[in-house]
Each structure stands twice: as structure tokens, then as C-alpha cells.
């Protein structure tokens, strides 16, 4: 007997809702739950793996019908998967990778892909010469975003292509990134050609520093497609923002969870592709949203191993929940 949406209770364990990007996923998830008429319990681990595990324990005790997790740590959050399996509750991993692959489904991006896209753009489209001096600002060490994007830079050979003069973490934080960028701009002077950031919040910090120093020539880019960043791309001050579809990740995460809760078969691996937003497509994006820039860039898709054509667009993503497992 299939459950009614009204009887379904979905548990959502987010890693840190105080992060701009993660909060957007959470919002979309809540909106989708409302839309579908299911109950959603949204727990926020505040950046602490242990709390995430506690949260999941509580959610399972509260009798959720499916569990969605945005892992705080690839390895550290892994026990959640077996906990859910033991409790016989479907578990959906959202946004980033997790160490234990025995989950019911994954919805999100391959972080390495965003690193590859960002690296490629800097190598091929930014106009920088080979061997230019660049600096990299990283996310918190050990997080899927940091590990994956660095691997992506490596994969496309960016680390060798450029002369990487400095690499530091700014923990996804705008102000920390700004201080780093200020120091580097001073240290490397005119030689410094670009600051490559693993997310847009940090990119915005670096941009503030560059602008304050009057260094409009420094090319800055990041990941996420934050509103600020997209606006900056439009203004021409920000080179690239690799769009990660937060709304899609939140929405589809809940959709898959609801389907799983009903006992339906679900697509085990939904990878929503990244889309670089540059001066070429920013207007289209601002007008038409994600759909307007999907699938317009062949180079993008080449880099993805697991290509899911047009999967990022609304209907396609919803479809996937109905599709049978491979």
C-alpha cells in the first residue's frame, strides 16, 4: 500500500545552514516538501560531524520514512549510512560525497567536476598565459568541496599549467579570503595574475581585496553561482562562477526521498552537472535561469565522466526519480 504524502516524514540533516550555499539547498528542500505536502524535519549540524551523527540518530528515532544528508565530512559522516540501513530507512546523500557508498541514492554534483571546469576555464578561456602566477584559496580541509575541487584542478593539469605561488584555506569565508588576497596582492605584486577560489563566497572576498588595491587585472573565479558572484560576472569584474544548482539539489533530494519512502525504485545516482557562468552566458542565465544555460557548452560536458544529459533542468531531474534503477 502506497503511503499518502501527508503521512510521510522526511528527515534532512544539513551540514551547516549558516553557509550561504548550503542554506539555499535547505530552503529549496523545505519549499519542495511543502509543495509535496510531506513533513520535513530539518536538522542543522552547524559544521560538526558528531552533531550530524547525533542529528541522524534523533531523526531515525523520530521515525522518519527517509533520510537526506548533506555530509559534513566525506569520511566522518559515513556511519550515518549504515545507521539508516540498520534502521531500514532509505538514505539519500545530497550535495557532496560520502565515504560509505551503500546509500539508497545520491543527488548532487561531483565536486571534482567543478574543479575541472574551473581549472579548464582559467587555462583556456581566461586569456592567461601558461606559467602565469596564480594563487588558490581552498575550502575547509577534508570537505568534499575542497578535496574534490583540488583533485579537479590536478586532473586537468592546472596546477602544472600555471605557476601556483600560494595555496591556503579560507574555510569558505569571505573575510578570511579577503585578508589572504590582500597579503598576496602585496607580496606578488603585478606578477599575480589570478586568484582561483574553491567557492564564490571566498571569491567575493578576493574580489574586494583586488578592487581595493586597484587591481582590476587580476582574474578571479569560483564555484556556486552566488547572486553576488553572478552580478560581478555581469559587471565584468569576476571571471567565472561555476554554477552549482542549489535549488535543484534541495528539490530533487526531497523528491527522491519521498519516492524512496513510498517504496518506489529510485535513480541511485543523480549527478546535477555544473555550469560555468561567464560573461558570454550571464545575461541568458539572469533572464532564463539554469535552463537557459544548460547544455550550451560542449566543452563542459566532455569533462564529466558520468554524463547526465540535461539532467539539471527541472523536468529531467524530476523524471529521474521515476526512472528505474540501472
Amino acid at each position, binding site marked *: 500500500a502506497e503511503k499518502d504524502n501527508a503521512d510521510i516524514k522526511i528527515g534532512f540533516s544539513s551540514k551547516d*545552514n549558516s553557509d550561504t550555499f548550503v542554506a539555499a539547498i535547505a530552503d529549496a528542500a523545505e519549499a519542495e516538501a511543502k509543495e509535496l505536502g510531506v513533513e520535513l*524535519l*530539518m*536538522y*542543522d549540524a*552547524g*559544521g*560538526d*560531524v*558528531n552533531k550530524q*551523527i*547525533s*542529528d541522524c*540518530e*534523533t*531523526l*531515525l*528515532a*523520530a*521515525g522518519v520514512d527517509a533520510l537526506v544528508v548533506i555530509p559534513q*565530512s*566525506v*569520511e*566522518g*559522516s*559515513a*556511519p550515518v549510512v549504515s545507521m539508516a540501513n540498520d534502521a531500514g530507512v532509505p538514505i539519500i546523500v545530497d550535495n557532496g560525497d560520502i*565515504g560509505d557508498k551503500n546509500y539508497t541514492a545520491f543527488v548532487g554534483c561531483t565536486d571534482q567536476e567543478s574543479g575541472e571546469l574551473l581549472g579548464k576555464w582559467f587555462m583556456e578561456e581566461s586569456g592567461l598565459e601558461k606559467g602565469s602566477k596564480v594563487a588558490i584559496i581552498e575550502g*575547509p*580541509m*577534508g570537505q568534499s568541496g575542497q*578535496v574534490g575541487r583540488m583533485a579537479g584542478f590536478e586532473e586537468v593539469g592546472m596546477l602544472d599549467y600555471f605557476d601556483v605561488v600560494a595555496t591556503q584555506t579560507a574555510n569558505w569565508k569571505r573575510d578570511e579570503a579577503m585578508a589572504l588576497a590582500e597579503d598576496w596582492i602585496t607580496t606578488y605584486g603585478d606578477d599575480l595574475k589570478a586568484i582561483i577560489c574553491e567557492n564564490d563566497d571566498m571569491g567575493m572576498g578576493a574580489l574586494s581585496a583586488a578592487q581595493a588595491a586597484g587591481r582590476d587585472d587580476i582574474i578571479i573565479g569560483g564555484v556556486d553561482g552566488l547572486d553576488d558572484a553572478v552580478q560581478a560576472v555581469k559587471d565584468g569584474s569576476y571571471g567565472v562562477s561555476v554554477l552549482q544548482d542549489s535549488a535543484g539539489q534541495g528539490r530533487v533530494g526531497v523528491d527522491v526521498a519521498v519516492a524512496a519512502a513510498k517504496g518506489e525504485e529510485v535513480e541511485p545516482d543523480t549527478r546535477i552537472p555544473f555550469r560555468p557562468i561567464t560573461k558570454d552566458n550571464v545575461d541568458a542565465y539572469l533572464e532564463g535561469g539554469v535552463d537557459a544555460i544548460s547544455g550550451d557548452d560542449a566543452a563542459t560536458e566532455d569533462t564529466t565522466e558520468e554524463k547526465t544529459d540535461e539532467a539539471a533542468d527541472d523536468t529531467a531531474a524530476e523524471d529521474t526519480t521515476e526512472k528505474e534503477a540501472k
Partner: protein
Amino acid sequence: MTQKKDIGKILRQFGLVFVALFIIAFMSIKSDVFLTSQNIINILRQISINGILAVGMTFVILTGGIDLSVGSVVAITGVIVGSLLQSGTNWFLASLAALVISAICGVFNGWLISYVGFQPFIATLSTMTIGRGFAQVYSNGKPYTISDLSFKVIGQGYFLGIPVPIILLVIFCIIGLVILTMTTFGRYVFAIGGNMNAAKLSGVRTQRVQLMVYVMSSICAWMVGLILAARISSGQPTAGESYEMDAIAATAIGGTSMSGGIGSLSGTIIGFVILGLLQNSMNLMNINSFWQQIVKGLLIIIAVFLDMRTKGKKA
């Protein structure tokens, strides 16, 4: 009339306990999950982390000190155990190795404070920073995945149907209570916090006692490091960040004075139980995490206020 008075009196005598009972009563009505054995076990398992740290922290704070480094010791323990387990070391030896390093952190804190004369805040802040850096350098910033099943028991196992972390919490609380209330060492902890000079003049070896409380705190952090690593099946260099704050909060809510000399471990126990109950309750009531902070802050104020009334302190 008299009955009214009586109730008032009772409420006052148990300020914090009353707050805890109130939360429990409220939640049993509001949620049918709350009183399930599964949820109770969850609550206890969740508070074991902060609880064990708070036991050590209570000793430190009673001497008038503070230990900011516990979170880093948790991380150090995690990466050391993690790396050793990965290299095939037996879980017992791996834990022992981490214990030695943790104890060294405690000795370093205690030595700086009692023999060199550092302010506890500065000494343990430095150890916290150095310790975190060490954990990250050691692990190169990457977590060690732990697959050793016998080790995982510490965090995920059961003994007589009770989760091991809960048993460890109970053991640490009991040991703490015994030391603090029944031994000379416990007296000296209070004496040092109450009047270091007087204690010294009475022949108390104040420096040793001071050193010891920091070692004890580090040992608690080590225990937590093991439980956490076992619980999350990985030794993470970022583990335990800002855990010191919760441990200090539990101690302070429990009525221990930050300037030392006044307080009790039983107060601390109620303190961390209240914090744990709060967290679990707000989750069960599905309060948005932003609101959770507001509610938590207000409830801490109310709990402490009630407790002060109880004890006839100002207010």
C-alpha cells in the same frame, strides 16, 4: 496559602533539576518520540561527548583555571588512533599511544600554568592552537578512515544492552564524583580555587594539584577523542572544534564559579544533561536551527537565573 509556599520552596531548592524536569515533562506531552527508549539512549549517547569533557573541565574551573585545549586533544587523539589503526596496530596499543600524547598536552598546560606562571587562558589557548596545527600537520589535513571493529565498539558498541559511550560517561562521572567529594585531592582542588595562597600556607602542594587537573582534563579529552573517532569511524584533524565552549557552558550552568572554589560536579552533570535535553527537544520539535540558538540562549539564562534564586545568591 501554605501549600503555595511549599511548592515555591521546593522549586527553589532544585533550581536546575527543576528546569531539567520541566523540559522532560513538557516534551513527554509534546512529542511521543521523546520518552521512547531509543530516544533516551540517543540523548545519553549524545551527551557522553560533552559530558566527559565537562567532568574534566569542572576540576579545572574549580581551581580557577580554564582549559581551551580539549577540542584539540580530541582531534590529536583521533588522528593518532586513526593512523595507528590504519597501519594495523592493535586498538589497545593505539589508544594507549594517544593517551600518552594527550597526557603530555595536559602536562604541558599544567606546567606552563603552575610552574611557569602563565594565565590558564593563554596557556591553553596556545596549546589549543598548536594542538590543532599538530593534528593537521600529522594527518596532512586528511581524515583517517577507521575500520577496526573492536575499536569501533568504543563509540558504536553495546554492553549489557547499553551503548558503550554511556557506560564510559557514567564511569567518568562516578570517578569524578569520588575524587572531588571524597578524596583529599578533591579538597585541594576546592582550596586552590578558593584561596591559592591559603592552600599553599596550609601545606597543600598547589603546583602538583594544579598540574594534575590539567592532565585529568586532557585524559577526559582523550576518552572523548576515542569515542568520537569510533563513532564517526574516522580520525579527523578537525574533530572537536569549539567543544571546549560546550564543556565550559555545562560547568558554568551547573553553578561552578568561573573564578574557582565554588561549584560541584553534580551541578555540571545537570548542566550537560540540560544542554543535551535542550538540543534533542528542539530537534524533535523541529525548531529551525536559527531559532534554536535563540531558544537555547534564553533557556540558559532562565536556568541559571532559577538556580541563583535557589541558592539565595544575588538576583
